[in-house]
């Protein structure tokens, strides 16, 4: 598939934004600037970007506890994103949500979610809402290999299949759910195999090849928007960081991590592709790298200088109406 140059460059830029955002978030967390926990998606940039960029801007996504990448890929601004994980009023959620509940509802991101599996039914609902509203918006839900064991997953896929809703089930199989390997927790080799139980089409793709992810999701989105019902895509990938920053990671070997980092880095792989296609030079991409580095530092400065929510805001936005 021949893609426009702008789109190809945007994919690189967004993946780089995710990469740098996560690296810096991890550092800032260890330095004590970020409260709570961060669940980084370093190494999983291609599934986020390939999928989100295959959607229309007004389509919906739901995300996971590892949702910074999805948020950036869906087009969020870096400043309110960083401010949110810093807990400031200028954050997407006024500092009330934090890393695991970051959302950009106006931008179609119906939220990161700290409950594994819950976001899947919510995305099914968004697709249902789209049908009730008479629009052709589709929804895409991100979830991991671990979520495919939850009741929430099975019920939601089943419901979407029987109602024939325009949902794309996007499994980011990074092979681990905290410490538990997917070969232990799944009786079938691929998450995509589970789709057969629901009679919906499924694809398993190299989740670190952003163009492969993009192509697969593009096809799925077209099918869904064409009233062909839900689609299931699995992107095989790997998370470089622990489940959370600070995870001792005794459940996997450093050799395994290093191998993925060195041989299957989504950004490096994509660089090679762009250069081989003659779309971009090293200088072009290095320039993007510099711009992104600067943009992230500006976002950090913005966050650090943003106000902390006042105590009076504790009860704000609990309800729309007083009674």
């Amino acid at each position, binding site marked *: 598939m021949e893609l426009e140059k702008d789109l190809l460059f945007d994919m690189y830029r967004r993946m780089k934004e995710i990469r740098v955002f996560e690296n810096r978030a991890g550092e800032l967390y260890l330095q004590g600037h970020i409260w709570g926990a961060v669940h980084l998606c370093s190494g999983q940039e291609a599934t986020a970007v390939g999928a989100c960029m295959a959607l229309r801007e007004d389509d919906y996504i739901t995300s996971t506890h590892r949702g910074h990448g999805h948020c950036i890929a869906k087009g969020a601004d870096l400043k309110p994103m960083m401010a949110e994980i810093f807990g400031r009023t200028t954050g997407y959620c006024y500092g009330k949500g934090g890393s695991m509940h970051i959302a950009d509802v106006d931008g179609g991101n119906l939220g990161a979610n700290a409950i594994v599996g819950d976001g899947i*039914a919510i995305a099914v609902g968004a697709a249902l809402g789209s049908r*009730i509203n008479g629009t052709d918006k589709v929804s895409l839900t991100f979830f991991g290999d671990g979520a495919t064991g939850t009741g929430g997953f099975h019920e939601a896929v089943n419901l979407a299949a029987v109602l024939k809703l325009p949902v794309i089930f996007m499994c980011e199989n990074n092979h681990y759910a905290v410490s538990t390997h997917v070969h232990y927790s799944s009786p079938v080799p691929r998450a995509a195999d589970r789709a057969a139980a629901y009679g919906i089409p499924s694809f398993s793709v190299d989740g670190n090849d952003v163009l492969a992810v993009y192509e697969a999701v593009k096809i799925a989105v077209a099918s869904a928007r064409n009233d062909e019902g839900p689609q299931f895509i699995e992107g095989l990938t790997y998370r470089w960081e622990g489940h959370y920053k600070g995870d001792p990671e005794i459940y996997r070997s450093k050799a395994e991590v290093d191998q993925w980092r060195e041989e299957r880095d989504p950004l490096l792989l994509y660089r090679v592709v762009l250069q081989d296609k003659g779309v971009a030079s090293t200088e072009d991409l290095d320039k993007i790298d510099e711009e992104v580095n600067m943009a992230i530092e500006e976002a950090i400065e913005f966050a650090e200088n943003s106000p902390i929510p006042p105590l009076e805001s504790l009860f704000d936005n609990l309800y729309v109406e007083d009674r």
Partner: protein
Amino acid sequence: MTEMTYSEAIKAAISEEMRRDPTVFLIGEDVAIHGGAFGVTRGMHDEFGSERLINTPISEAAITGAGVGAALVGTRPIVEIMYMDFITLAMSQIVNQMAKARYMFGGKAKVPVVVRTPGGGGRGNAAQHMQSLEAWFVHVPGLKVVMPSTPYDVKGLLKTSIRSDDPIIFVENKLLYVTKGEVPDEEYLIPLGVADVKREGSDITVIATSRMVLFALKAAEKLNDEGIEVEVIDPRTLHPLDLDTILASVRKTGHTVIVHEAPERCGIGAEIATQIQEHAFDYLDAPILRVANPNVPIPFSQSLEAAAIPDDDRIIAAVKRSLGT
């Protein structure tokens, strides 16, 4: 005015709101042609079809989660949970998602869902089909809980609930579905958070919810013959609670009995009693008493079941204990 059943009043409310607003729809098990397990929406399918009366597989978590998602994108779902006991299967979507989305997202989202479900019982449905779990949801910030007792109340409150932009747990009652009452022919709404004094009296305040309101009124009739004047208050909305109406009554009578279906321990009576004593302590002439289910699952055998649910006799006994008569 027309006499109709509680069930017909619900059907009228849903139908009127669906006609008025194309984004309102009903989703749940057997809600389409069958009209729901209790037949509440039977006959609506001809008018609204399967596009707006959405039948589902048995999947309370997904049904409720779909309600959350549909609400987030600008529709007004009514989620029907067949028996309140089954709401336990949807707890994460209600407690973690529906109740919290608006707050966690800094006010940038709203979740205008109504979860309708019948609680209570008394016809041998036994332990897993008769629970009244409203207290759990009053305990979750971000939800509102409505629990009407009459056809008039249920229609007015359901219409308001459907129009509300907040997530509402709307607790109906299985044995109330067939009860009858007068309902205005013209449109009316009842606001949330407003209690109703169902009967005035000066000797004692009896606060009752749902079907227990009927027992409280029956008890009041009998006590009236003995010269005891009972004021019966139906909160109608459990959260936000109309404490002002309750306190005005308590200041007048000095005696309070709270009646609810659901086990006594940590039932809604515990919260109401605490609020009363906190705000009107000096007006109390006796401890606040509760009449509720004993702290057991509801047994099947009919006579045991009867002992596990409050009735007017138990209310009368509590009133007399409170008054020291």
